[in-house]
Each structure stands twice: as structure tokens, then as C-alpha cells.
């Protein structure tokens, strides 16, 4: 099975061949490295940009203005803050020009903790991103969804922020991407650049097919009756592991993988809460003005009388960063035990 980085790479290749992608660029995105997580290795339209985030976003917007289809990358979301006004511009072009121009661009950036990334390689960005109107925001939790979401992002005529959970980049999927060879080793030999000198290397792309995860459509990763957990990205597999553990205790938790953070799939969340009466939102962003608060508010607005218990948010502590020593990350970002405890408590609390 492909890992998440390979899935993104194959999606971008498909985008180059079939969906009009003209430029895939950012710092270290082109040869020889092909991205710090290898997600852009071997792509024919990939190129290296100066280490200049403002230039990267401005160039992407200009390419989109001129009829191109750019996929730009900010190497880590922690370095995206000096382009907030350009992101605002990308998001408001269609509205402010009354539809004269629009912005078909994809911006991808790795997010989240879990790799001992310290202060500037561990942040989440989705909560801030959802305050920048005019963008659609997606975050996959597995390779097949990463592939399908990237294809949808490329085909989208509006700007899409593709958040890649960096801790999952090497995680393999449970399902094959359509057209992916069944044997991992075969895939590796086809599309992974060799170590060392790779100047003559060319990928041998598998015949991957058009498979899309619609933007705005969540999925139920695990069916249950006792509690609705809404999560995404890195916290999805953590939540499923916890739910599996609780299932052995006879507690069936429903886990929703949001996949699209904005606009999120409120109908699916609402239907689940109406079934379970309980809602726990889990993510690793810091807790103040966390996007999970918006999810909870929408549920309060639309399914208040279905709730048996006050909804809760399990998120990162409101501290300035994720510290390097494990003791910092362990105690400021939700971990497996925290998720399990919160789920058990909410699923078993009296109504």
C-alpha cells in the first residue's frame, strides 16, 4: 500500500497529466529532493522556489490569474504566518472583484506534531485558516483520501488549502488507490527516487485513475452508538485505536473523519449526534478559538435537544509552542491515553 506521501505524489502526477496542473513549486519541492517528505519527487512540473513564502504565494496567485493551475507548498505551516495577507487576498479575489477573477490554486503544507518537531515544525493551522474566508480546507487521515482529496482540490475553481498531517506521511493505507500496484515493493521501485545521485532517475508512474473524495464530504471511520467523535488528520487513527479499545469493553463509539474542515459536513455530524446524543471533538490545534468550538456551536444550534451531555473539545493546550522535549509535547498535545480517557468518560457518563 502507498503511504501518504506517495499518495500525494501520485495525485499530483495525475493532476499534471489529466487535470491541468502547470506548476508544483516551493522550497525544495523540485529535484533533487522532491519535498522534505518526498511528496513531490519525480513530478515533471515541480520546481524549486527561493526560500521566500511571500514569493511562493504571490507567484501562485499570479499563475492562477494567467490561466495556470498551480500547486504551491509552504514547507511547514509554522512558516506560513508571514503570508497571511496574501492568503487573505487569494480568498477574497472572487468576492472583491464581483466574480471577474477567481483563484484555482492549491496550497499544501504539512501540519501538526508527532515528529519531535519542536517550536517551528509542530503547529497546527486549521483554526487560523478557517478565519481566512474564501478558502476550502481539507486534511486527509489516510493515503487513499489524500489522493482523492488532492484530485478534488486540483479540480476545484477556488483556492484549496491541503493540510498534510506530517506524522502520517509514512503511514501506509488500508486500501489501494485505484491503479496502484498491489505490491509495495513494486510501487517503491516505480516512484521512489533512489538514495544518492538521482540525476538520471525518472519515475515509472503506475496507471493511477480518477478517484475523488468530494470536498465537504466526511466519512464514518467507525460506526457506534455511545458517542460521536469528530476528528481529522493525525487524531483520526488515534481516535480509531481508542474506539477499538473501548469496543472490547462493550462501548461502541462512532468516529467521524471530517476530511474537509471547511466547509465541514454538518449534516453527517448532526445525524450522528442525533443518534448518540453525545459529541466529542478532537484535534491537536490549541484550544482557544479552536475550530472545534465552531463545530460544537453548530451542533448546539442545530441538534441541541438531541444532546444528552454537554459537548466537549479535546485539543492542545493554549501554550505558545510544542516543546522539543517529549515531556512538553506529551503534556500539551492530546495523546492516545488522553483520547481514550475522554472517550470513555463521555461515553459512560450518565445522561
Amino acid at each position, binding site marked *: 500500500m502507498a503511504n501518504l506521501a506517495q499518495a500525494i505524489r501520485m495525485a499530483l502526477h495525475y493532476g499534471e497529466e489529466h487535470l*491541468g496542473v*502547470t*506548476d508544483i513549486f516551493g522550497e525544495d519541492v523540485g529535484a533533487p529532493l522532491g519535498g522534505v517528505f518526498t511528496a513531490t519527487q519525480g513530478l515533471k512540473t515541480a520546481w524549486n*522556489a*527561493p526560500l*521566500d513564502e*511571500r*514569493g511562493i*504565494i*504571490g*507567484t*501562485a*496567485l*499570479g*499563475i*492562477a*490569474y*494567467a*490561466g*495556470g*493551475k*498551480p500547486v504551491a507548498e509552504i514547507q511547514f505551516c509554522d512558516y506560513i504566518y508571514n503570508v497571511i*495577507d*496574501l492568503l487573505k*487576498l487569494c480568498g477574497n*479575489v*472572487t*468576492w*472583491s*472583484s*464581483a*466574480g*471577474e*477573477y*477567481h*483563484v*484555482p490554486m492549491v496550497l499544501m503544507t504539512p501540519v501538526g506534531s508527532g515528529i519531535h518537531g519542536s517550536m517551528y515544525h509542530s503547529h497546527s493551522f486549521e483554526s487560523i485558516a478557517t478565519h481566512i*474566508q*474564501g478558502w476550502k480546507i481539507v486534511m486527509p487521515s489516510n493515503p487513499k483520501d489524500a489522493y482523492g482529496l488532492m484530485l478534488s482540490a486540483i*479540480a*476545484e*475553481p*477556488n483556492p484549496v488549502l491541503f493540510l498534510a498531517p506530517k506524522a502520517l506521511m509514512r503511514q501506509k493505507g488500508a486500501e489501494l488507490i485505484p491503479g496502484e500496484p498491489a505490491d509495495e515493493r513494486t510501487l517503491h521501485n516505480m516512484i521512489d527516487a533512489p538514495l544518492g545521485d538521482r540525476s538520471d532517475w525518472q519515475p515509472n508512474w503506475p496507471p493511477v485513475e480518477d478517484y475523488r473524495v468530494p470536498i465537504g464530504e466526511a466519512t464514518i471511520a467507525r460506526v457506534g452508538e455511545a458517542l460521536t467523535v469528530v476528528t481529522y488528520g493525525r487524531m483520526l487513527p488515534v481516535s480509531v485505536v481508542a474506539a477499538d479499545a473501548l469496543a472490547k469493553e462493550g462501548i461502541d463509539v462512532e468516529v467521524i473523519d471530517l476530511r474537509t474542515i471547511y466547509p465541514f459536513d454538518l449534516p453527517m455530524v448532526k445525524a450522528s449526534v442525533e443518534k448518540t446524543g453525545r459529541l466529542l471533538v478532537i484535534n491537536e490545534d490549541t484550544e482557544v478559538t479552536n475550530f472545534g468550538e465552531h463545530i460544537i456551536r453548530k451542533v448546539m444550534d442545530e441538534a441541541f435537544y438531541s444532546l444528552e451531555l454537554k459537548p466537549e473539545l479535546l485539543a492542545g493546550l493554549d501554550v505558545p509552542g510544542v516543546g522539543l522535549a517529549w515531556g512538553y509535547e506529551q503534556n500539551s498535545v492530546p495523546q492516545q491515553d488522553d483520547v481514550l480517557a475522554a472517550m470513555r468518560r463521555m461515553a459512560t457518563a450518565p445522561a
Partner: protein
Amino acid sequence: MSATTWKAPKLDAKMKIAIHDKMVLGRATEEMLIRMMRTGHGYFWIGGPGEEGFNVPLGFLTKKGHGPDFDYLHLHYRSSATILAMGAEPINMLRQMRATATDPYSKGRNFVNHFAIKPWNVVPVTPTIETQYATVIGTALVQKRHGGDGLSYVTGGDAGSAEGDFWTCMNWSTRPERELPVLILIAQNEFGISTPASQTQNNRHLNERANGFGIRNACVDGNDPIASWHALVEAMAYVRHERKPYCLQANVSRLYGHSSSSGANRYDEPDCVGLYEARLVRENLMTEAEIRSVWDKHNTQLAADLQKVIAEPMPGKEHVLQHVWHEGTASN
């Protein structure tokens, strides 16, 4: 006009008179916009009266059209005379000033002089004073790859050139073997809102900053439309054919301050329109009576335009959610 070749129009007597006509139109339009602000027909004015001597030649020399064969314009909000020289209707500027629902540039959402005209490659003007220096890289990159002689030009003020995006533009457009056809324009009016250049610039020739990047550059008297014309012809010819950047500074006047926030009162600075009219009379190209008739023609039309615009509908609740998302095809 051919999509692939561009020849600058000839600067003959007819063109010199046409330049005057558009300079007057530009000035009269800006002064009408200021009157609208003062009489309650608009919330806020910002524009470029005093820059017509440079901006009108720029408009005439633009290769106008849609797509990478033509010039992309990354303008700032002092570019009204350029757009008018290209053939824009001044009534649409009045509509944007009044923020009517009929405003074709933003449907009443943006300040005046914030254009967006896709058929002419005029990308949306924003109130930021620097982002256009970053976006111009993208259109120029597409043009470099596409071929032809289309270029991308970006206009900004002297204060805006202090922003990092100005340096980003020079750096990205001079990458080895990846030089870009960008014309970097600086309108030097010696002020950043209210802050005089003497407090922020150690060298008023901001174009010389381009020397560090190996970018050919020049400085021109932007109050002289003839000198501006020749400087632009030279700069554009270089960018069109060498496919490399060029930086041109135009020294201009700022006749009504930064915006209505500073009162929009007339400043005692050289007036490019008046200077040019004296020259036209001196060279026997126009009489004073002919000049007056040009002013009368435009002022009469603008007054009629205003009456029309005042009667037009304003945006309401039904407009708020329009164009949040684009629903059509992916490509611009």
C-alpha cells in the same frame, strides 16, 4: 492587432493631442471623485491626480488584451489615468466611488480605483501596497513560458517599495536562466501617506536598488508625458524582447494628498496637465480655446454620468453572498 507582435504607436501630433485628452479626462475624473466624496456621494476617495503625465503614456503603450500574449497589469490604486487611456469608461469609476451594485469592478465592495478587468488582463487592485509586486511574478512566469512579447508590469509607490514584496519581485525575476519579463514601476511622489521620503529613503532614486540584482533601470520625470513616453518605450522594448526585468522610476506630483483621510486638498506642486498644456500651446499643437473645450467636454460628460450613477441601485442583502465561491470552470 496581432497577438504575438507589438509595435508601439507613433508619438506624432495626433498622439500628443490624444495624450492631452486622456490626461484631462484622468484629472477631471479624479476631481469628480473627490467632489463626490465631499458631497456625500461616496465614503472614501483614493487616487492618483498628479500622475497623469506618466500614467497616460503607460496606458497607450500597453499591449491590451486577454491572455499571456498581452500585457498583465498589476496596478495600485493611483492608476486611473492608465485605465482611462486604455479606454475605460469613467462612469464605472463613479459607480465604484458611490459603491453601487452596478460597479463592474467590485459591485460596490472595494474602494474607488480598485479595478478588475479580465478582458484587459487587469488583475484585481488591492488596498495593500505591496502584494502586486509578488503576484506579478506569476503572470510573468506564465508569459516567459508561453513566448511572444507580452509582459507583466507592476505599479507601486515609493513607500510601497519599502515592503519585502518589492525585493521579492526583483529576486524572483532575476533567477539565473529564469529571468522574467517584468516591468517594475515606481511612482515616486515623496510621501508615504503623510510621512515624507526624507525620513525613510536614503536615496530618492529607488530604481537604483535594482542595480543589486543586475536589473537595468532608469528614472524619468513623470510630470513630462513626452519624456515618460520615450522612457516607457525603451523599458518596454527591453522587457518584451530580452524577456528580462526592468525597473523604471517616475518622479511625480501628488496634488491632492494620499486620500480623503488627509483631506484631499490641493497641494502646491507642479501640475503635469498644466505644464503639458503650456507646451502644446507653445508648440502650436493646440490653442487655449481647444484646451478649454477638452475640459468642458469631459466635465459635462462626468456631470451627466454622476446624475445617472446617483439613480442606480445600491447593493443589498441579496448581494452579500454572491461570488463567495466561483462555481464555473477552474481556469481563468
